[in-house]
Structure formats: structure tokens, C-alpha cells
């Protein structure tokens, strides 16, 4: 049984014209979102993307963009309630993290 989250939500984008084909994104992606045949990789299945940001962070040419951030419901809710940026800093109340 594979677990796949909501469709068509990821903000991941790859600008092929900026890509130098190093393949680092294929390597760091923990969900196999990218595929490559040894040349320039492409986004094979965007619905597997969890927006962790590893690909964009490690892209040497800035060809990848993604809005990565906290994907935790309680962090988002408390962020909305307090009007602040959601953070998974739950160390203070001793609650769970990330």
C-alpha cells in the first residue's frame, strides 16, 4: 500500500532552461519525484512531492523552486490563531515536533 497525499497541491517547479543536468535533485528527493535518463532530469510525479525543499536547496543553478515549510496541522493552526509564521518549535510546551 503506498501513501500518496492530495493531488495538484505542490508548488514545485523546475526551469529546464536553467538546469545543468547534474542530477542532484534526483539524488536528494526522498519521494522519487524526479526522473532522469542521465541528462536533464524532469518532474516525473509531482503528486509525490512533500515540498521538503531538498532539491531546490541543492540545485547549483537555482533551476528549482518550491515553497517549503512547516507541514504540520497544529503548527499551521496555532500560526493562524496567533497571527505569526507557523513554526514547528514545539519545544516550549513539550509537545510533539515536526
Amino acid at each position, binding site marked *: *500500500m*503506498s*501513501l*500518496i*497525499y*492530495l*493531488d495538484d*497541491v*505542490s*508548488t514545485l517547479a523546475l526551469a529546464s532552461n536553467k538546469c545543468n543536468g547534474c542530477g*542532484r535533485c534526483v*539524488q*536528494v*528527493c*526522498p*519521494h*522519487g519525484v524526479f526522473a532522469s535518463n542521465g541528462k536533464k532530469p524532469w518532474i516525473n510525479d509531482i503528486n*509525490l*512531492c*512533500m*515540498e*521538503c*525543499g*531538498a*532539491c531546490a*536547496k*541543492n540545485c*547549483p543553478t537555482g533551476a528549482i523552486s518550491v*515553497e*517549503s*515549510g*512547516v*507541514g*504540520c*496541522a*497544529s*503548527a*499551521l*493552526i496555532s500560526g493562524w490563531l496567533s497571527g505569526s509564521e507557523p513554526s*514547528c*518549535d514545539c*519545544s516550549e510546551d*513539550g*509537545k*510533539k*515536533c*515536526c
Partner: protein
Amino acid sequence: MNGQSHSGRQMAKSSEITESWQIGELATPIGSVPVIATRLSAKDKLGAWKVRWGIGRMNYKVSPGLYAVGEPDEASPVLVSANYKLTFDALRQELSGLDCWVLILDTDGINVWCAAGKGTFGTEELVSRIQAAGLSEIVSHRLIILPQLAASGVGAQDIPQRTGFHVEYGPVRASDIKEFISSGNEATEEMRLVSFTFKDRLVLVPMELVPAIKMSLPILGVVFLSNQFARKPLGKKDLAAFAGAVIAGSVATPLLLPYIPGKAFSLKGWLAGLCWTAGSLQLSKGFELQDRMLAAGELLLFPAISSYLALNFTGSSTYTSPSGVKKELKYAMPLISGAAAIGGVLMAAAHLFGKGEKK
């Protein structure tokens, strides 16, 4: 010395801290380095169990710095990891028989993936820790192996120019490290993918259940008080329906995640809670005429609680995206709070003013 980064060299000084997992010292060109055990003691296992239940979880750390496994020399591989003790233990127990260096970053006692997401397992900390440990004088090669999940925090392309070291991303799981190293730092496709197995989910369940129980206690307190004067006191069957709904959301949904229909966690949790609530009402004959308002209230409120608790599990899952969670919250939260409010009012009305069963 946790959390402190000093200028100059800083080893994990064995003379200052004597840890049970330290089994010796190794002399290096720049001082002695603690040698760490690759077997976990009963104390380590007890510590792991405690933090899984949330006991002392935010202060379960080891000192950042350089450690040795076996008898490493200048050609031995360097593995980088986080200073959460649970992470440190998970790593070192996979290193038996290896001779290697382990460079522990100060991630404030947070695991690799979460720390990378926060940026504490990041480029800056890595660069300063490499320098503080004097790594370039300890090994003659210029390669460090990072856990793949550190990639959200570290820009591998930025490290060589600042430290002289190149970054190789190792496997996601520590259990694949030996195979990774023995195959010449080649990861299989499977080693690069994050899983979310039943066992992965099982170890997370206590940290779902404990907050859920804490949240439930005030509710139970209020009902205990109102039971003293309510015309229809709530009883064991109502308590069972409530407790079951809490467990449906915080335990059953995480464990049965792939088998419950739907993609949204709130939907999965709601379905689990609905099954339990409807089932327990059926068993307790709650659908009989005089209990209809109470039954309707429970059917609205309890699955909403399960749904909310299941929603919280997105924070622990390994595959949900922030954009997805935001979308889910946008749709689910109004429904959850609406159902809970209406259900709560119906239950309170039936409870306080309904036709009571004669005591």
C-alpha cells in the same frame, strides 16, 4: 556544553563528560577523540522508550563534536549526524565493525530531517562544526557523508568552497550505511526513498495519544461535574464512545493509515471516528427514541474529534506537503468545528434537560 559553539577547536571532550556509551579515547593529531560503542545498553533503550512517550524529549541530547567508531585513521569515512540522542543511537548501532568518524552537529537535540527543515542542520552549522573539529587535520581525504534527509537544510554545492570538503549524500536510513559504504558510496534507489511503514507509524503513536489524553481530561472533568445535576447523566457507554473516538483519531488512524479510504487525514480520521461512534451507539441501543438527540450529538461531535486528532498526524507523517495540509485545513476545519459545535450543543441539551433515566 550543549548548544554552545566556541571559537577554536572543540572536541566532544571525554575528560568533561563521561557517558555510558563512550568506550575509550583515540589519540589524533589534534587531541583525543571519544570512541563510542556500537551496541546500545539497557539505559539507551530505556531512554529511547521514554522519549517516545514524550518524557524528557526536548532535552535528549549528546554533545556536538567529533567521535570515533572502531579505530579510524586518516583515510576513514566521515559520517555527519544530529545531536538528538535517539538519532545518535540509531546511527551508532548500525556501525559495528566499521572504522569511521562521526561528526555530530548541534541541532539542539532535534533529529536530522526536522532539524534540516528548521535550518539548524544547515550549511552554517556544518561549516563551523567541520572547522571547530579540525576535521581537515584528522582525515587526509576531503569527503563527508551526510544523511540524505539533511538535504533540506544543507546546500551541498556551498560546502567545498568554504571548507574544502565535498558532500556525499548517504542513504535515508542508518541501517543502509554499511551497504552504502561497502559499495563505494553508491545508494540504491530504495535507499533514497523515505518509507512510512507500520513500524514507523507505531513508534509515533504514543506522542499522538499522550496529547490527546491531556486534551480529553478537562472535558471529562466538566462532564463529571455536570453529571451531578444533569437530568440525564452521561454514563459508561458515552465514555466508551468518546474514548474510542479519541483512540480512533490518535491511534487507529495512524496505524491503519494506508487502509482507511481517502487521502486527507481529516477524512480518514472522521471515517474511523464515525465507524466507532456509530458502532458503539448501535451496541448500546443509543438509537432508541429517548436518546436520539444525544445520539445525534455524539455522531456529530465524536467523529469531529477523531478527525481533528488525525489531522495532527500530518505533522509526523513523512509524505504530507505544507500546501496540501493548508488546503486540507481550509476545507476541514470549518466542517470539524461546525460539527463539533452543533454536536456539543445537542449533547449538552440532551444531557442537561433531556428525559432522564430514573436513577
